[in-house]
């Protein structure tokens, strides 16, 4: 019977892998993943003025704002420790805004008009040809407000040195009293809470893939009387086990391929840069190279030694639980359409886990999210996320693993009984009655 089990696994697995569609899908995945990792290079390859600073023309009718605004812009640059970080290029002009913006080179430029009101209050008007993005708007607003404050303070005859002190943005130094937490890990944790769900996304996709694959395979055999020939030669238990093993091997192979594609993408990225991971190109305001380097030196990285194996263990166990459940549900259905309807709640459960993982960073310490992190099927996505964020202890994570193992035990004990009955059932009449009866049988 053991030989037959491995033969069934071999046939099932080779039918999934030795197809031209598996090769085509993976070539597409490689292109997509490598492309996504290098998306900035791809975008730049097609051209555009992404490196140019936002040009801001200033019409200073107040005769006191331009210099202050320019100073504010420099202060912001120095705050980010790099001259290049300044997003704006401030230029003084007296030209009429409409005429200025109608010039070809100034299509994307802005015009800031500073006016003094009758009550000597600074009024500002921002003119652009099209819409402007909210981040840049927020930054220029802050700078303009600071300009207004600085101008107002200057008029109170404060000493210029004092004025400089007041107008310079404050750099906040962080100190965390908990000895186990480094202050530099704080921003890393914020980044991880955003990035981690993205890393978990392939797990979510593979889970859906796994459930659909088992359902289709069982129904394919069930729609012919081939199932009778098969089950007359191997026990239903061996048959289900073969589906579980082959499908899990397939998703593990597919998962490893995704990791390989990601490495290829990173490799390409390094090749496109200077060969140093810390010098990798940046995406918008996020410097991936710098973020990665910070991550590798952070406290969180040292915890990965146990976080990664535990997460992988949790994922594999959850894959097994999902595949057992999918197999049992597929045995109860008489065609793939019925199975697709039955699998919808499984998808929603998985999706819930994914959403909660994304929200975990925002709702820190949420009891609601923490409770769901223990729930099998959801825990594979949520528990590792909470562990990385420091909201779940190692013991709590181990408890979540034990709960998944318990669900697998229940599915093996009771699910096999349903599978044995369901696999040769070709009618949906009195289905639930039959299944409950099967649960009681031994």
């Amino acid at each position, binding site marked *: 019977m053991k030989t037959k089990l491995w033969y069934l696994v071999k046939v099932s697995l080779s039918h999934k892998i030795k197809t031209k569609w598996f090769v085509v899908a993976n070539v597409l995945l490689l292109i997509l993943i490598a492309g996504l990792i290098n998306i900035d290079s791809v975008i730049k390859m097609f051209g555009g003025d992404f490196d140019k600073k936002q040009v801001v023309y200033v019409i200073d009718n107040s005769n006191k704002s331009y210099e202050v605004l320019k100073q504010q812009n420099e202060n912001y640059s120095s705050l980010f420790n790099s001259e290049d970080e300044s997003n704006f290029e401030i230029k003084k002009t007296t030209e009429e805004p409409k005429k200025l913006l109608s010039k070809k080179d100034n299509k994307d430029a802005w015009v800031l008009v500073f006016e003094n009101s009758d009550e000597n209050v600074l009024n500002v008007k921002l003119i652009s040809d099209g819409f402007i993005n909210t981040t840049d708007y927020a930054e220029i607003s802050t700078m303009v407000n600071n300009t207004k404050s600085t101008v107002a303070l200057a008029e109170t005859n404060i000493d210029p040195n004092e004025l400089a002190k007041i107008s310079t943005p404050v750099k906040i130094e962080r100190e965390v009293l908990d000895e186990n937490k480094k202050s530099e890990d704080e921003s890393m944790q914020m980044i991880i809470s955003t990035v981690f769900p993205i890393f978990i996304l392939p797990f979510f996709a593979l889970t859906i893939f796994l459930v659909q694959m088992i359902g289709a395979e069982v129904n394919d055999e069930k729609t012919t*009387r081939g199932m009778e*020939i098969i089950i*007359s030669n191997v026990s239903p238990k061996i048959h289900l086990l073969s589906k579980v093993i082959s499908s899990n091997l397939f998703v593990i192979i597919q998962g490893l391929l995704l990791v390989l594609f990601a490495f290829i993408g990173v490799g390409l990225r390094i090749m496109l840069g200077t060969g140093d991971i810390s010098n990798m190109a940046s995406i918008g305001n996020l410097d991936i190279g710098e973020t990665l380097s910070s991550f590798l030196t952070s406290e969180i990285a040292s915890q990965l030694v146990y976080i990664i194996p535990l997460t992988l263990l949790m994922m594999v166990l959850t894959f097994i639980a999902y595949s057992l459940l999918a197999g049992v549900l597929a045995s109860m259905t008489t065609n793939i359409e019925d199975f697709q309807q039955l699998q919808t709640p499984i998808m929603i459960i998985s999706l819930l886990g994914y959403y909660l993982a994304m929200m975990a960073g925002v709702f820190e310490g949420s009891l609601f999210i923490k409770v769901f992190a223990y729930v099998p099927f959801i825990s594979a996505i949520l528990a590792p996320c909470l562990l990385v964020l420091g909201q779940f202890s190692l013991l709590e994570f181990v408890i979540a693993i034990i709960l998944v193992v318990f669900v697998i035990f229940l599915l093996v004990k009771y699910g096999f009984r349903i599978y044995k009955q369901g696999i040769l059932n070709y009618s949906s009449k009195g289905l639930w009655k039959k299944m409950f009866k099967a649960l009681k049988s031994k």
Partner: protein
Amino acid sequence: MLKVDNVTKYYGDFPAVNGLTFEVKPGEIFGLLGVNGAGKTTTFRMIIGLLDPTSGEVTLDGKKIDYSVTDTIGFLTEERSLLTKMTVKEQCHYYGILKGMTEKEVDERLDHLLDKFGISSYKDKKIKELSKGNQQKIQFITALLNNPRLLILDEPFSGLDPFNVELFKNEIKEMAEKGSMIIFSSHRMEHVELFCKKIAVLKNGKDVLSGDLKDIKKKYRKKNILVKADIDVDKIKSIDGVLDVIEKPGEYEIKISDESVEEKVFKEVSKCKNVTKFAVEEPSLNEIFIDKVGENYEN
């Protein structure tokens, strides 16, 4: 020897098979007949070990049916049991290896059978690409692959042309000559009459007629007399024991209740002019079936 001993199977309160008993010895072809829903499929499922009987026992060569025994059984289902996405070779490997054969054994046997049925060129074709008749051939081949000790054939001639029916018949006879036990189910009574020495007719799960086919026909009192003569139909019909007179092209078929009526009919017919034929025949299995089950099996 296959022994089905007083087997009963209930689905809830419904008795699908009720106290069925029969034996099939090596080299015998046994006909299991019955209209749809009579309990044939349930019986087949119990024989191949898919279902456990509620009571009674099924044994093959004295052993209770389990996975060590089912490797020696070949089963051709009435409906398609082929996985159509596979090629012929993959399908035969799949079922053959599940029956405990090695890949080499499957290859050798498959080449022999494909050659015998004249479809060697289909070996690497996908099953879904084959015609209904060729799919039936492949299904038959998968049932024969393991040289089964017990071969169950449920409607084996479905979808076949007369030439291929002949091929199947020869193969079935050959299997029986080699010592296989064969259970045969068909809606075509002439096939059952041709193959089977013993039969059992099921009605609502119960055995309503069983035994040696010759004995069944012998014991069956009703006979048919075929007559070629200028007879007076009304006069013949008025004879006590004559059940019906059917006019057929060039002759009459007179149905009588038992052998004792033969003489009375003969006396009356001998009075008629142009008598060229008077033959007493045993009834067909179909007639016996209709009489016992109340439905025409060949419909």
